[in-house]
């Protein structure tokens, strides 16, 4: 062993000596090396300048086509023809962009291309086109996309293949399909998982993700305590029904006795008037709120404010509120209610949520009978949604309430309606206007 080591050392020393000679020779010829470096720098600069150069319109269009899967299409192996390839099936041969046409395009690929040439490009392209065709919430469309993968040649047979991601390009494509399903709230079927096992083999990276989705997504399917209509139901609903569902969701959990009703302005008034609008109005008011309106002082004005925003899944609903300014008496009462126990009396330095009436009578006396509708912002009398959201439609709403509560005619009603919610305004525009005003003043 010792001899061997010695010989190795000798060899290494000889190598080092070689390297040193080379180094010395290079150090003497500094001018040559510098010229080489300058040439290479020029080449790098030219490459860099190509990137900085302003993009043509054609290149911009190409980037839009690629979308978020930019990294996949920018590989050197992929030609530009691959992007045009999937557009033949979708854009050129179809006029109406429906869910049925999307499915027919997938079938056309199966029939016209039995060898399945460039099928990964086709799948990535189809995922981009899904939202245009309104098929992004449809399970059968995803299943049909998954069936494009061939059964057999991609399957993992050994443990080594299973753990180290056999055919990574194909598996990443399948994971992207599952990812898009998860984003759009589509829940898997048990047969879908079996299909992935057939294609890729059990416990591969694709199948693990599919199994996780099958396990976790149904757990949170019905966990919302304020229920929403399902995705399939919400697509077929009209605007009135969505407004009805939104008001039901807001009011019924706060006050059980709210009465929600829908009206049409065609039934209320004649169409011959000047400022007539044919819309629908949905109101929500409880019995307690009607009593509060009757007890209201006539000197204090009532406001109709809005539009405020609520969301039902991906739909935005604007609603209006009838309310007053807050009373200082009510604010004091609410503050007393929130301080459940005085901290001085409590040696634990803690509050208590549920007061025991037997334990201390002091806290029992503090409680006052305030309803849900009396808030620090002000007492709320009614809520509504209208089809147009204009001032005239809200004027009809007050007329509907006047029929139910005759004392509303004597009150002063002020309309505070914003053209748009304040946080939709562009901050950049505001800043520019602010700067211009400053320059003018100077």
């Amino acid at each position, binding site marked *: 062993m010792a001899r061997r080591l010695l010989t190795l050392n000798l060899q290494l020393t000889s190598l080092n000596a070689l390297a040193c000679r080379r180094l010395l020779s290079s150090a003497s010829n500094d001018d040559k090396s510098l010229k080489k470096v300058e040439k290479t720098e020029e080449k790098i600069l030219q490459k860099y300048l190509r990137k900085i150069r302003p993009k043509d319109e054609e290149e911009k269009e190409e980037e839009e086509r690629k979308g978020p899967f930019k990294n996949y299409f920018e590989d050197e192996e992929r030609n530009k023809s691959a992007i045009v390839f999937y557009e033949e099936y979708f854009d050129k041969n179809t006029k109406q962009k429906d869910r049925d046409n999307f499915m027919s395009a997938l079938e056309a690929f199966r029939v016209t291309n039995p060898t399945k040439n460039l099928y990964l490009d086709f799948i990535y392209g189809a995922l981009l086109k899904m939202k245009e065709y309104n098929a992004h919430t449809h399970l059968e469309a995803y299943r049909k996309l998954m069936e494009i993968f061939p059964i057999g040649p991609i399957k993992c047979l050994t443990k080594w293949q299973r753990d180290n991601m056999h055919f990574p390009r194909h598996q990443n494509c399948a994971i992207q399909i599952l990812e898009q399903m998860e984003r759009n709230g589509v829940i898997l079927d048990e047969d879908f998982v079996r299909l992935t096992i057939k294609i890729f083999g059990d416990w591969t990276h694709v199948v693990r993700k599919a199994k996780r989705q099958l396990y976790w997504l149904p757990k949170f399917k019905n966990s919302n305590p304020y229920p929403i209509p399902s995705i399939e139901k919400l697509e077929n609903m009209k605007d009135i029904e969505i407004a009805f569902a939104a008001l039901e969701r807001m009011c019924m959990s706060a006050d059980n006795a709210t009465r929600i009703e829908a009206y049409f302005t065609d039934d209320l008034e004649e169409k011959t008037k000047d400022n007539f609008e044919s819309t629908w109005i949905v109101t929500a008011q409880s019995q307690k709120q009607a009593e509060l309106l009757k007890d209201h002082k006539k000197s204090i004005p009532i406001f109709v404010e809005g539009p405020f925003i609520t969301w039902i899944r991906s739909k935005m609903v604007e609603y209006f509120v009838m309310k007053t300014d807050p009373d200082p008496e009510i604010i004091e009462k609410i503050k007393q209610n929130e301080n459940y126990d005085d901290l001085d009396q409590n040696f634990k330095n803690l509050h208590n949520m*549920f007061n025991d009436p037997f334990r201390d009578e002091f806290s029992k006396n503090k409680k006052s009978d305030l309803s849900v509708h009396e808030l620090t912002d002000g007492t709320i009398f009614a809520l509504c949604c209208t089809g147009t959201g204009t001032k005239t439609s809200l004027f009809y709403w007050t007329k509907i309430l006047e029929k139910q509560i005759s004392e509303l005619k004597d009150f002063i009603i002020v309309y505070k309606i914003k053209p748009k919610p304040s946080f939709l305004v562009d901050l950049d525009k505001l800043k520019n206007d602010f700067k211009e005003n400053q320059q003018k003043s100077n």
Partner: protein
Amino acid sequence: MVLILKKQVLRRLITIRSFSYDKWYKVESERQKRINKKAQDFVKDKSVFDLFKFVTKEGVSEFKKFVQEFKETDNKNYKPYLEHGDFDYLYKFNTKEDIENWLVSSDSGYKIGKTKASLNLTQQNTGLFSGYLSSDYDKPEKSKAIYTGYANISSLTEQKSFKRENRINIDQFNCFMLKIRGDGRTYMMVLNTPSKYTLTYTYMHMFPLYTRGGPYWQYVKIPFSKFFHASHGRISDKQYRFEGLDVKSIGITCMDGVEGPFSLEIDHIGVLKDNESTEHFAYETYKIPKYISNT
């Protein structure tokens, strides 16, 4: 003969690899210069003078803090016996100082997305977390991000003496209690609970925070048993319970995937002891078969 042959073979190998000593010398000399400069700067600016400054200025004040903490250890370790319904405020949003202890972050901070978010005081002295969630991506080249659109608020960790983390321990309580007023979206409540290794800095327990829209306030109660474990924002296969120990920060995220404005009004975040909720852990703790990696 043998030696001559070996030399020839070696020369060939050098030519085949096309290893240029000029380039190597250029790169290596620059690298060594850089390392030397770094070391000199480190010695000059940081190591000696910083220690001297720390001992003179900050060290005295930190040591005073340490003495105070040592005196108050008895009060902190005192855990009273909690009854049914006892609760405590963790965070309030009623003054300007309370809101400054929260950190707002979004996509646009990393120059990937275009979301806007802010946390402000309202007229009724409550915190309003609002903004505009957008899924547009304006990203640099060669970034792996495909989907964008999130906004987050998270509490800042308090610091003990000598700049140590003061983590939240709510072991004796049972569930969270929030008073909020949202707009129909589902938000996510996030508890960052990393252990001491840096690999685990993204470990967190989370649960969705459902809101109904409208002007009415809502009290939300989330027991500790409902929180599921996640890392890098994805649910992990190995699940374990949130014990209420070593919470680095508490946060609320808006990552609904729906483009548009959002607004969430928060009054306080509290902790409650509820004897009626006796559930230990809400989810199953299945095991994956052997030789398959858990994630």
